[in-house]
């Protein structure tokens, strides 16, 4: 393996951050500059949103059920089983719903974007697009970013609801809780801050997933092997960034909303 000097490594890292920032800024700026590729946004929304629905349904349902299963045991010891609806509700809406959905969509779509754009790059299709007078940033990147942000928002809501439903199934079928009591406590515990936090996160995660996927795709080097590498890096980087952004946003919003 070729050794890289610290100076070159630092330069490459700064260059990568600069390139990523430019891509991210332009992907948003292009929304306000014609031409706008509405049909491409709808197509990507179908691909990303509807395509990810089965995996989001499955994970949302099972995470909610597992959360209820695990916490019921502890709550039962303190005679507080009735709190299970509240626990599942807050856990799913504030944290688990957004992050699990984000990670699932990252695994499925950041890799897809990186491999698709990477393949287009190494087969000169990106250059061909530029040569034909079309801006690949507008045609390829902006629709993916817009569609991912939009669809992840709704996928997270679906995941939250299914998580609550999974928790309700466990609570009523295994622990014989009253169905209405579960739902009313789950609903009553939620305050504006919880819902705001739970719905802001998917917007940020969607942006991270799409921009990272597109960035790694458009910077792929070294033929098919390079595309494979870019795909892996896109999944790893977007997953790590989702966790980092989640931590920062949670802390920031807890400070702003003065959570106890």
């Amino acid at each position, binding site marked *: 393996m070729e050794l890289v000097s610290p100076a070159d490594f630092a330069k490459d890292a700064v260059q990568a951050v600069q390139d990523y920032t430019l891509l991210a800024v332009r992907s948003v700026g292009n929304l306000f500059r014609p031409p706008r590729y509405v049909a491409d946004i709808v197509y990507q929304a179908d691909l990303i949103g509807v395509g990810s629905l089965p995996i989001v349904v499955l994970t949302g349902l099972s995470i909610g059920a597992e959360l209820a299963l695990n916490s019921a045991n502890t709550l039962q010891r303190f005679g507080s089983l009735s709190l299970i609806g509240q626990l599942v509700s807050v856990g799913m809406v504030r944290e688990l719903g957004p992050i699990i959905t984000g990670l699932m969509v990252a695994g499925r779509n950041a890799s897809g974007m990186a491999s698709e754009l990477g393949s287009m790059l190494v087969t000169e299709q990106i250059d061909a697009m530029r040569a*034909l007078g079309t801006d690949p940033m507008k045609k390829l990147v902006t629709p993916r970013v817009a569609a991912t942000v939009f669809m992840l928002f709704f996928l997270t809501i679906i995941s939250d609801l299914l998580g609550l439903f999974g928790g309700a199934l466990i609570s009523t079928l295994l622990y014989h809780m009253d169905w209405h009591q579960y739902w009313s406590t789950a609903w009553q515990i939620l305050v504006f801050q919880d819902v705001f936090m739970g719905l802001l996160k998917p917007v940020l995660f969607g942006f991270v997933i799409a921009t990272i996927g597109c960035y790694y795709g458009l910077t792929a080097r070294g033929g098919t092997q390079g595309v494979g590498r870019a795909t892996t890096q896109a999944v790893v980087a977007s997953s790590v960034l989702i966790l980092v952004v989640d931590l920062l946003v949670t802390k920031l919003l807890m400070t702003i909303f003065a959570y106890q």
Partner: protein
Amino acid sequence: MAAPPSVTTERLSGTQPSASSLVVFEDVALAFEGTPVLKGISFHLAKGETKAIFGVAGSGKSTILKLTLGLLKPDAGRIYVLGEEISQRKEEDLFELRRRIGMVFQESALFDSLTVRENVAFRLLEEGNVTEEEVDQPVREALSFVELENTVDMFPSELSGGMRRRVAIARAMITHPELMLYDSPTGGLDPVTATTIIELIIKQRDVFKTSSLLVTHRLQDAFIMATHYFDRRRNRMQPLPPGTRSEVPMGFLILRDGKIIFDGGLGELVHTQDEYIREYIS
């Protein structure tokens, strides 16, 4: 027999750039990661001229085409294309100019998720506000030009290598650009298919009077271009009558180690005393 094309341009090769030059390179240099690829390249392409660019692999032939299109930016020097200075122009300011240029890539670079029709119509569809009829007519004409009318609903993966090149030519020429750039259009093709592609390039040159830069490894491609014209009545290329070859607007550019070592016409090329060039063309 239809008459060979009359020469309407000045004597083209080796002259100074003029107002009619479509492409002008002035002392252009470019390096990739510290390795010089082009060193002080200067040449011009006159209106109506076809210039064939030769050189061994890695000599910077394709780089010249990418610089002409603004896909790469030079480290030094100036580039003028269709009368506009593009050397350091921003990417978003180049799209308008690129719509006046057609490029055929080395491996065709067709969009593999689009059909032949969508590939060929890409430029028209991107311009927007066009009806189905407004797209279908030029697509049919372009595919008819390359004799592939029956592939309209096929995907690039269903086509042979030669057919893909022909679709790439149709895609590049659908809006009748003023300048065509061909990057090894016959690379990797069998001799018969390669000749078909060259015939299409001659057809494009003689029917639409398009200027072009042609990068190729095959010397015979450029010789065919310099010695043939397209007979529209017979719908095929024909050898030029003796004595008219020097009138074909065809130039040759040979690169070696990032520098131009020859820029001239067919006559000068075959009579050169340069040992490297003689060995190259032998």
